[in-house]
């Protein structure tokens, strides 16, 4: 994993000292809130409904054990003993006090973490595949390039005041687990005619009030030219992106209004100017960064087939966990383990300080000290020896983190909603909890199969509802909460935006409405191997609309 160099450490420490001074001056009344607000937002500090919310960056979702232990310490010492993992693979604390923030930042700096650029109209945390460097289907490990993008985008002097926030995601595998087509820029590893590995560049994707699927702006950009090409896109966006209306300020609107060919022409013109200049990425530098992500000392193990059927007979819960929570590893004898943060009836994405400590211990002992945060609000142990799986599972049971529901209907993405968020127009966590309880039976979840529910408490879509196979959007209507249901969204390489099939539902009617959709799918699927999303694509809206609203 990447380690701070002298420059990184000096930069983060200087920023920590600077913000401490700004907080002190704010509390002393030397600066007012209008002056302080942009400063605190640059350091990830929001004000929400009940208190401040402090958002800490987890670069490309990668953590070491001591970093997670530090987050546990912060949760226990300065917050209320838990943290909330987000769809940007960051972590949020919901109850800090302003006067404690400088000390929290100092603690973070001790473990090479910070909260810079977790808010504001700048380039946010770059995200990637949670199985990067481990997945069997990977063309290339995207983490070195993600780290290079982090360095390029941190406090970039031109891009600290963009028209709006800007999000980049990349994947080194053909299976898109990073939702790259719903980012301002998405990168996917690709080969050119000579077989060299570079990047497909997608631009103008996003969710929010105007969901759009990114468009392919360049089928191949080499590593050497990647930063210059990204800089060219950002320059075009910074120059022409709308600043008159925040709801039309994302690059997706610029691409949509101007057209891809126009934007491409502008980007190419800019690229022609700066290509070969200071942003050229020499192979030696890529190699230097890649060395930080070298393989851990994997043992030479035989390829081991796990007899899940047998394990399910011996211990159904363990068998289910093996069936759902493992991902194939590129090294024989190893697997990646997803730790579900979706226990039945609990808020998605939350972990207590004790659980964070427990996961840190497990990662240290059984995953070469490495952890990942997923955009689906779970954690991952990327490199676990198959022979250690039972021990890891038992340790997760002890930490109450043994839910074997990854990829199933109760593995729900959900934003904090109106229970915490000042922008929300409806609650989302209670809906997630009710759905989780309704479908809690492992047999029922198995029967349903792969089905992703995503819930947002407002149109900003932090819960990614547009790309849920079933999406739920909470809105305010006549002083109450109403929930629109969409069907058919998909965040993967088969990107699709879900469709609203009719009027919204009261909160208490949402679980039954979802069950009707599920039953309609089960009744019409060709076989148990046809997932919900495939059945929806084959069947179209009609049966699902009928399931929700009858034959009106």
């Amino acid at each position, binding site marked *: 994993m990447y380690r701070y160099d002298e420059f990184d450490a000096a930069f983060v420490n200087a920023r920590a000292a600077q913000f401490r001074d700004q907080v002190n001056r704010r509390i002393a009344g030397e600066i007012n809130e209008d002056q302080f607000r942009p400063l605190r937002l640059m350091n990830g500090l929001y004000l929400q409904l009940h208190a401040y919310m402090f958002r800490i960056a987890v670069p490309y979702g990668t953590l070491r054990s001591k970093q997670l232990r530090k987050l546990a310490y912060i949760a226990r010492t300065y917050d209320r003993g838990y943290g909330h993992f987000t769809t940007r693979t960051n972590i949020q604390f919901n109850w800090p006090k302003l006067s404690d923030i400088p000390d929290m930042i100092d603690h973070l700096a001790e473990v090479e973490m910070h909260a810079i650029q977790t808010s504001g109209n700048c380039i946010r945390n770059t995200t990637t595949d949670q199985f990067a460097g481990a997945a069997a289907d990977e063309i290339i490990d995207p983490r070195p390039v993600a780290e290079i993008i982090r360095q390029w985008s941190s406090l970039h002097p031109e891009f600290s005041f963009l028209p709006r926030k800007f999000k980049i995601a990349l994947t080194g595998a053909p299976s898109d687990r990073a939702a790259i087509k719903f980012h301002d820029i998405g990168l996917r590893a690709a080969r050119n005619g000579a077989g060299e590995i570079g990047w497909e560049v997608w631009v103008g994707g996003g969710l929010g009030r105007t969901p759009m699927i990114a468009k392919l702006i360049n089928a191949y950009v080499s590593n050497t030219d990647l930063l210059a090409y990204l800089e060219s896109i950002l320059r075009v966006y910074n120059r022409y992106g709308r600043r008159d209306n925040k709801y039309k300020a994302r690059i997706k609107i610029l691409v949509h209004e101007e057209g891809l060919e126009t934007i491409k022409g502008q980007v190419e013109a800019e690229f022609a100017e700066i290509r070969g200049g200071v942003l050229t990425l020499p192979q030696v530098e890529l190699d230097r960064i890649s060395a930080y992500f070298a393989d851990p000392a994997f043992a030479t193990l035989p390829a081991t087939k796990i007899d899940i059927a047998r394990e399910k007979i011996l211990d159904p819960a363990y068998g289910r966990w093996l069936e759902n929570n493992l991902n194939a590893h590129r090294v024989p004898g190893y697997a990646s383990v997803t730790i579900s943060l979706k226990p039945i009836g609990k*808020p998605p994405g939350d972990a207590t300080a004790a659980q964070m400590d427990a996961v840190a211990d497990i990662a240290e002992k059984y995953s070469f000290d490495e952890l990942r945060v997923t955009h689906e609000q779970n954690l991952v142990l990327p490199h676990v020896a198959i022979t250690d799986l039972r021990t890891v599972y038992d340790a997760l049971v002890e930490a109450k983190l043994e839910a074997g529901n990854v990829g199933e209907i109760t593995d729900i993405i959900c934003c904090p909603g109106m229970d915490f968020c000042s922008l929300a127009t409806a609650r989302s966590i209670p809906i997630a909890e009710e759905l989780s309880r309704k479908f809690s039976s492992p047999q029922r979840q198995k029967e349903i199969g792969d089905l992703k529910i995503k819930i947002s408490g407002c149109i900003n879509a932090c819960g990614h509802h547009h790309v849920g196979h079933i999406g739920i959007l909470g809105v305010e209507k006549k002083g109450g909460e109403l929930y629109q249901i969409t069907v058919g969204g998909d965040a993967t390489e088969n990107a699709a935006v879900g469709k609203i099939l009719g009027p919204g539902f009261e909160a208490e009617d949402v679980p039954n409405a979802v069950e009707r959709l599920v039953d309609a799918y089960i009744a019409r699927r060709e076989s148990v191997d046809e997932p919900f999303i495939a059945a929806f694509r084959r069947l179209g809206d009609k049966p699902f609309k009928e399931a929700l609203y009858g034959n009106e």
Partner: protein
Amino acid sequence: MEILTGNELVSGATVYLDRNGAWVEDLQQVRLFSANETAARDEAIARTKATLRILSLEIENVTVRDGKIVPDRLRERIRATGSTTPVFDRQHLTEDDHVSI
């Protein structure tokens, strides 16, 4: 009826302007402004802003039901009681966080 609400600077706690000009946690102690008290309300807003200690200062509509003050908006009812799930007590002021106008 209207009330004034905001968040205290250091704790971030939800607070209300009470009848004595203090910013307090208890919604039921709040000062109610009737439709013909806009001048008093606006003066209270100006004096509050001058303290630099109350953020997200808002005018909210409330209704008095059975002697209880109830915010009209669900969002405000959640602010007044704390998160509904997971259930957490509201943030509280510490000794140094009290603000008056």
